[in-house]
């Protein structure tokens, strides 16, 4: 079996991730931050160590500015609902996932502008500079597309946003653990990430990093509740990370996430990226030789993650998907990838695409076999 659905969730996970989760349940079954006994403290240590590992991976200014969430969507909702007020100008791109578009469409009274992107998904920086007007409150940008992998110029957009006085929120669902991310060097004010894709942790983990320039006092908490701190008060505390972490955290999941982040750091971001560029290049070049097939997104593997989308003239993507699964043991995702805006930009709405998304454990032999399988599926 060849698993090419890492853009949805990574599989398999490193053995260290599963071991860390089993250890958490076996040895540290307490509720982190709630009690003073040894099992609670040990659980707290594991969660704190994961916070530190995440902060180091992304060069966050402080581990306490790493907020753990259920997923990237949860992190994006915390940022958008907490920061935005009626009348605020918000600028986003034409390549966003519904994790960004649906919350933005659901906030009443904001002035929303969308920067158009080219047919390969690349952002138009000149239009970004025109639309991000002085006084803009927030710019929300997808780091790399979940449909076709296109990488956006985050640092350049950060510079434009900051000149206008805006904050930059980056959706790193597809890039955390896949591309090097340095929030301070790249000028990212808020980074939303998920734990179960490139970071190789379990589902139900993710986070929001608050950059040094973000005043957490300006972000209303998305949820309120028990934090284990300032228990005499019925008001939500302002202390980080507690303000945004009401309720018992997913300790077992965070234990796995911490192990995944440590695995990624040990492998090295540069080594991971080099491997994935080779995978993407092999896929793009191989698919391009198949008659009638069109690859969407960048033709240069350096400009995208290892997420490659294609369509074939006169063939339904759903049929290609089931043939790859049943006849060739290749698992991928087909259709609209929760990103109608991106599909409109790419010209693949409403039919969608076949998406091949290898990951860190995928070999070059795997992707070469997948290309042959696609050719055979289309010949059938």
């Amino acid at each position, binding site marked *: 079996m060849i698993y090419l659905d890492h853009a949805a969730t990574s599989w398999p996970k490193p053995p260290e991730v599963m071991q860390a989760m089993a250890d958490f349940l076996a040895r540290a079954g307490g509720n982190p931050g709630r009690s003073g006994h040894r099992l609670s403290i040990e659980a707290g240590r594991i969660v704190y160590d994961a916070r530190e590992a995440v902060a180091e991976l992304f060069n966050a200014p402080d581990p*306490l500015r790493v907020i753990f969430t259920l997923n990237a969507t949860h992190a994006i909702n915390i940022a958008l609902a907490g920061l935005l007020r009626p009348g605020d100008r918000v600028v986003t791109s034409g390549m966003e996932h519904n994790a960004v578009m649906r919350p933005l469409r659901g906030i009443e009274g904001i002035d929303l502008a969308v920067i158009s992107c080219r047919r390969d998904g690349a952002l138009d920086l000149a239009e970004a500079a025109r639309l991000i007007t002085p006084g803009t409150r927030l710019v929300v940008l997808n780091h790399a597309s979940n449909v076709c992998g296109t990488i956006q110029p985050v640092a350049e957009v950060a510079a434009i946003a900051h000149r206008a006085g805006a904050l930059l929120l980056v959706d790193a669902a597809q890039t955390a653990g896949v591309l090097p991310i340095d929030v301070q060097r790249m000028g990212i004010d808020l980074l939303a990430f998920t734990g179960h894709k490139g970071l190789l942790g379990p589902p139900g983990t993710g986070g929001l990093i608050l950059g040094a320039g973000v005043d957490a006092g300006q972000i209303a908490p998305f949820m309120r509740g028990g934090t284990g701190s300032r228990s005499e008060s019925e008001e939500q505390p302002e*202390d980080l990370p507690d303000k945004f972490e009401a309720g018992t955290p997913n300790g077992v999941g965070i234990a796995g996430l911490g192990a995944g982040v440590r695995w990624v750091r040990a492998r090295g971001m540069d080594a991971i990226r080099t491997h994935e560029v080779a995978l993407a290049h092999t896929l793009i070049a191989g698919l391009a030789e198949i008659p009638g097939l069109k690859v969407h997104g960048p033709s240069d593997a350096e400009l995208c993650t290892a997420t490659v989308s294609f369509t074939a003239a006169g063939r339904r993507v759903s049929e290609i998907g089931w043939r790859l699964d049943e006849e060739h043991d290749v698992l991928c995702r087909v259709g609209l990838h929760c990103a109608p805006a991106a599909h409109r930009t790419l010209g693949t709405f409403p039919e969608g695409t076949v998406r091949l998304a290898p990951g860190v454990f995928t070999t070059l032999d795997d992707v070469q076999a997948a290309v042959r399988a696609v050719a055979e599926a289309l010949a059938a």
Partner: protein
Amino acid sequence: MSKYGVALFHTTSAALRAEKVAQHAGLTVKLIPTPREFSSDCGIALRFDWVAAARVQELLAAAGVDVDQMRALE
């Protein structure tokens, strides 16, 4: 003279960070339930040898750990 002191924090995360900072510097410390005679925001406190109080304070300040208060344990 007190044998032990405790550092009190606003959050568990700060207490856990303080433990790491102190242990990294080679000090013998222990996280304990916050003694009930002290009013604290957080359920755990960092216990240390009182003779090392100045050193603990200096280390935590240098690491940017937000300490609520430091008290001697009677």
